[in-house]
């Protein structure tokens, strides 16, 4: 046990790092939900396209031999910006083609449509990258390869980028939604779509914009993922998306700070569970085999005991 405890700081760090990744993906889920009360299941695939866009940018920079000569920060920012742009475009297109025609339909209909879009995008990515690069499992050119060692804890530089980006994205989004005029319009649409329309707000435009911003967030998360794990494939969105969705529900869906908090806690739970379930049960249960179960156990517990999540307000059901 002594030996097991000595790795606790490293495990908490690992958990925090993966938690920030969950958090930035969860932000996209929670934002769309906040406005439309609709879970955009295609968000995980928009994230995946962002990762591929970031990958393509880095590949291009590598081909032009710029990665080695330019400051790493320039490569990173370029990759993230292009990914945000691509993912925002996909987010907009998805809303226009798959959700808007179904706006008056019962709630389950757009949900099914979202799942359909998600499968479509997965296979679409598979087709694109099999055709252009021969294989859709791609290794991303590495930037920020170093790491800091603090005592017994090892923190890769890439992980710190995700943490900084997570905080920036959360505060940026909170500022955008609460302080800008467009944000105010978004909140109005979220509260009452019909009345907002009567007040002169172009509801369709605001909803489109929500998907553009949500897509851009997903794209940035994707590019950061590509940099962090230096490996992309069309299926990276699935598990991460489920976990991020869990994180969003955990923190209180619709609440931006809640999404980040939920992501961090989920990441830490998962890391602790994976590392200590084995020793605690004397090797009967292997932690890594049950890794995904922790996330979904949390989801079930939250839904049973505090359906509104940690920071969510109890709102009247609008179904």
């Amino acid at each position, binding site marked *: 046990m002594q*030996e*097991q405890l*000595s*790795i606790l700081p*490293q*495990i908490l760090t*690992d*958990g925090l*790092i*993966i938690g920030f*990744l969950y958090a930035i993906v969860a932000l996209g889920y929670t934002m769309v939900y906040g406005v439309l009360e609709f879970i955009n299941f295609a968000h995980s695939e928009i994230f995946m396209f962002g990762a591929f866009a970031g990958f393509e940018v880095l590949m291009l920079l590598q081909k032009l031999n710029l990665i080695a000569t330019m400051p790493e920060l320039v490569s990173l920012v370029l990759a993230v910006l292009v990914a945000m742009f691509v993912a925002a475009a996909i987010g907009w297109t998805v809303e226009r*083609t798959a959700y808007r*025609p179904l706006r008056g339909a019962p709630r389950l209909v757009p949900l099914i449509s979202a799942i359909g879009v998600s499968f479509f995008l997965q296979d679409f990515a*598979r087709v694109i990258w*099999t055709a252009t690069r*021969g*294989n859709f*499992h791609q*290794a991303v050119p*590495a930037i920020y*390869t170093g*790491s800091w060692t603090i005592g017994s804890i*090892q923190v*890769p530089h890439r992980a710190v980028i995700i943490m900084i980006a997570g905080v920036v994205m959360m505060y940026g989004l909170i500022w955008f939604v609460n302080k800008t005029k467009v944000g105010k319009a978004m909140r109005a649409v979220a509260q009452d779509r019909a009345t907002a329309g009567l007040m002169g707000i172009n509801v369709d435009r605001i909803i489109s914009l929500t998907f553009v911003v949500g897509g851009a967030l997903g794209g940035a998360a994707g590019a950061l*993922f590509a940099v962090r*794990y*230096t*490996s992309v*494939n069309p*299926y*990276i969105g*699935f*598990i*991460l998306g489920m976990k991020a969705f869990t994180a969003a529900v955990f923190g209180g869906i619709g609440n931006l700070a809640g999404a980040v908090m939920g992501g961090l806690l989920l990441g830490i739970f*998962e*890391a602790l569970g*994976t*590392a200590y379930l*084995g020793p605690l049960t004397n*090797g009967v249960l*292997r*932690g*890594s*085999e049950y*890794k*995904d179960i922790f996330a979904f156990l949390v989801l079930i517990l939250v839904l049973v005991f505090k359906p509104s999540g940690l920071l969510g307000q109890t709102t009247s059901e609008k179904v």
Partner: protein
Amino acid sequence: MKKLLAALMTLSLLVMIAGCGGAKSGGSGGTTVKLKIASVTPLSGGQSTLGTAIANGAKLAIEDRKADLEAVGVVLEPLPQDDLAEPTNGPTIATRLVGDKEVIGVVGTLNSGVAKTLAPALKDANLVMVSPANTAVILTESGYPHYNRIVARDDYQGPAAARAVKNTIKAKSVMVLHDKTEYGQGLAAEFVKEAKKIGLTVVNGDGEGVNPKDSDFSAVVTNLLNTKAEALFYGGIYDTAALIFKQADEKGFKGSFVGADGLDAEDIVKNSGGAANRVYYTSVADNVYGSKDGAAFVERYDAAFKSKPATYAVYGYDSANVIIEAIISYAKKNPGKTPTRADIMKAVRATKGFKGLAGEVSFDNKGDNPSAKVYLFQIQNSTYPGASLGEIK
């Protein structure tokens, strides 16, 4: 928008109908006998590198033997099927193959899990299977008359890998992970059994499973570093293996990475970063591409498919050739007659001493290849395929 949707749906329906129609064109006539050899492997998805290699190998075998087949009045066609490496797709594919009367043999599968659902569904049709890759022990222990494989089983490959870790890689302790599939878990279990017998310490009991669709393995890597194991054995396929190896290397793991034939693909080098040159894998073929025939195979493969073959391409090639041999020998004895599936099934099982590219193929009464050997490879200078370190005794 609605019109567009309607048009799209009509189009997809048409495509589906056309697809069904194409598969059904049956019957044979005249003096030439028209037959098909199907391959069942993942052609898309994370394991497509291996699956496509097998399908291409089978195609190449049919192409190479065209003249021999025509001499005995047989026209043979490949029929590649995509199983996505999902066991649930086995029965569907089986129905399709059994229904197509021209299908006389099946090369496949890549994954033992898929074979477990495909083999029972093909049994009643007497449709012969020759697997270029399945290693799960149970497949040939089920008493199937139609199921054969050219590679060594888990209970041969797993223990061989354990001996290689102790004797060649010279590690004293090892951490064992697997991907919770029929193949990976079976291999890991056999590895652990032998490791305990020869005094190699396994630091995590009987090994533990990871989710092969995950991207983050930091927790398990932290455990690996904490246990101070000198080697990491992974029972599974190259895609997840590469991710785990890379993350372990980045966190400062200095030991060796070991796996079996599931790692035998170019992507293991491309995607495992700094870990690549410490990757060892076992394979049933020794340095195929070093021989003259092997080099010629690589050339023909490259000309036909514009890519470098994974070792599995050779297994696919050999598996198809075993079936082709059976067809030719039947046609020689019964000129002009269409063989039944049972005829070919019996002829394949009777294969003895067939000289394949990867090695000799014979089948015992269970459908195992007693001539299969296991060799150890190490990736060197970040190039694929790895350098052979010789047969594991």
